[in-house]
C-alpha cells in the first residue's frame, strides 16, 4: 500500500509524484487542497501532525520529508535508478537538492505566495485569519502564514529572494553547460527536485529564463518536459498547475502540449 497525501504536482508537493511516475510505481493520490487549508485540518493532521505536505505512507510507514522520501522511493521500489553510481556524483545530486530545499525553493515560495496567495487575504476578517493561524502546528510555518495573511513580508526579504533565485538560475544554467543532467550523464533526483520547482519558469520568469539568457537551462527544461513520466505527473493536478504546464510545453515547442 502506497498512499501519497499531497497538493499539486509542484515544488515539494510534486516531488513524490514526479519521482513515482519516473520509477513506474503505482500509488494512491490523495489530493490535499492547500487553497482551503486542508493540510491544517484534523483529518490531515492525523496523518502528519506537523501539517506539512507531502506525506507519504508506505505499508504503515509515514514520511514527511520530501527529499529523504525521494531517496526512499528510489531504494524501496523497482524501476530505473534515479541516483548516479559514482559517489562524487551522488554528493553532487544531494548538495543540489539541499541547495533547493534550503535556499532556492523557499525563495521562490516567498515570491510566488506573496504574488498569488497574499492578495486573497486582503479584506478578510482578521479574527478568522487568526483562527486559521492557530491551527498551524509548526511555529516557523505559522510565522510564514502570518506574514502572508497580513501582507507583512518585508520588501527587502522579497528582493533578497529574487537575488537568490536569479543566482540559482545562473548556477544551474552554467552546470548544465557541462553535463546533460544536473548531477552528470544520467537523469537523477537532482533533476526531479529542481524541475518540481522550476517547471514553469519559462512563463513565470520569462525575462530571466529564455533561449537567449539561459540556453542550457532551456535545453534541460525541454528535455524534462519531454519525459512522459514528468508529463503524466503534471497532468495529475486539479488546478492551474496542469494548465500552466501545457502552456509551458507549447511555449517550449514540446510534444504532448495539451493539458
Amino acid at each position: 500500500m502506497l498512499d501519497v497525501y499531497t497538493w499539486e504536482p509542484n515544488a515539494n508537493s510534486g516531488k513524490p509524484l514526479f519521482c513515482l511516475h519516473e520509477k513506474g510505481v503505482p500509488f494512491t493520490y490523495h489530493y490535499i487542497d492547500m487553497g482551503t487549508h486542508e493540510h491544517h485540518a484534523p483529518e490531515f493532521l492525523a496523518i502528519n501532525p506537523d501539517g506539512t505536505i507531502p506525506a507519504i505512507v508506505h505499508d504503515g510507514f509515514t514520511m514527511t520529508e520530501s527529499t529523504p522520501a525521494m531517496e526512499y522511493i528510489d531504494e524501496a521500489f523497482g524501476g530505473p535508478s534515479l541516483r548516479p553510481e559514482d559517489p562524487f556524483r551522488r554528493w553532487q545530486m544531494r548538495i543540489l537538492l539541499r541547495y533547493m530545499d534550503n535556499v532556492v525553493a523557499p525563495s521562490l515560495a516567498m515570491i510566488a505566495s506573496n504574488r498569488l496567495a497574499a492578495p486573497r487575504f486582503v479584506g478578510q476578517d482578521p479574527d478568522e485569519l487568526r483562527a486559521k493561524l492557530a491551527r498551524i502546528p509548526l511555529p516557523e510555518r505559522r510565522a510564514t502564514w502570518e506574514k502572508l495573511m497580513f501582507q507583512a513580508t518585508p520588501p527587502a526579504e522579497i528582493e533578497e529572494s529574487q537575488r537568490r533565485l536569479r543566482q540559482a538560475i545562473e548556477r544551474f544554467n552554467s552546470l548544465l553547460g557541462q553535463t546533460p543532467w544536473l548531477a552528470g550523464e544520467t537523469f537523477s533526483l537532482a533533476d526531479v527536485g529542481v524541475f518540481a520547482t522550476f517547471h514553469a519558469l519559462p512563463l513565470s520568469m520569462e525575462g530571466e529564463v529564455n533561449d537567449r539568457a539561459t540556453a542550457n537551462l532551456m535545453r534541460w527544461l525541454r528535455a524534462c518536459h519531454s519525459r512522459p513520466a514528468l508529463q503524466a505527473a503534471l497532468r495529475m493536478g486539479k488546478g492551474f498547475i496542469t494548465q500552466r504546464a501545457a502552456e509551458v510545453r507549447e511555449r517550449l515547442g514540446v510534444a504532448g502540449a495539451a493539458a
Partner: protein
Amino acid sequence: MLLHYAPGSAHSASVRIALAEKGIEAELHKLNLVNYEQHRPEYIALNWHGTVPMLEDRGQYLMETFLILEYLEDLHPAPPLIGKDPRQRYIARKWGKYVETHIAPHLAINRWAALHGKVSDEAVPGFANLLTARCELWLRAKHGFDREQLAVSTQALLTAGNRLAADLAGNDWLAGDRFTLADVAVYPHVAQFGALGLPVPPAVEQWLARVAARPSVEAIGADLFPLAVMGPEPGRWG
C-alpha cells in the same frame, strides 16, 4: 583524503566520528575558528561557504556535513552506518536534514548569546570574502541577536529535544536498533545543550551517554566543547 576541520565545530566532530567508525585514515588540517581562519582568502578559494568541515578527495572539495557522511558511506560501505533498510535510511536522512534546518542554526544563535560571542574589529574585513547570506549572518551576530530571535531559537531547541526523545522511545539509537549516521550527525550538537543550560528529556540524556561511550567519540572528546561561532542560516520562509 584530507579533512579540513576545527576543534569546537560540532559539524567537524561528526565527520571525524564517522571516519573513526569506518576505520578510514584521513589527513587532518586543523583550522582555528577563534582567529577566523575559515574566512581567509586561501581557504575561501577552496570553499566559498567559508565553513568547516570540508573534505578534499580525488581532486574534489566536498561540503555539507551530512552529505560528506553519505559520501564516506558510498565510498566505504563497510561497516554500514546509513541504516540496514530503506526505512532506517529514511530516518537517518531525516535527522541529517533536521540538524541543518532546526538544530544547528538555532544552537549557534543560542550559543552565541550564552557564551557572549563578540566579533573583533580585525575579523570584520574577512566577512567581505563570504557569500552575501553568510556575511549577513555574521554581521547579525556582531550586533547581537534580539530577544525575540533568542526566544524562537530556544523554543526550536527544546522542540528538537522532544522530537529526539520521540524517536528514541523504545530504541537505543535514533534510527532504531543500530547506531547510524543519524546519531553521528546529531550527537555533537546536542552534546552542547547541557553546557548552554538547555534541558533535554531523560531518554535523550541516556542516549547522549551511550554515544559518548563509543571509542570513536571518546577519541575526540577534547574537541567537543561549545564555541561562539555561527552555524547555518535559520530558515527564511517556513
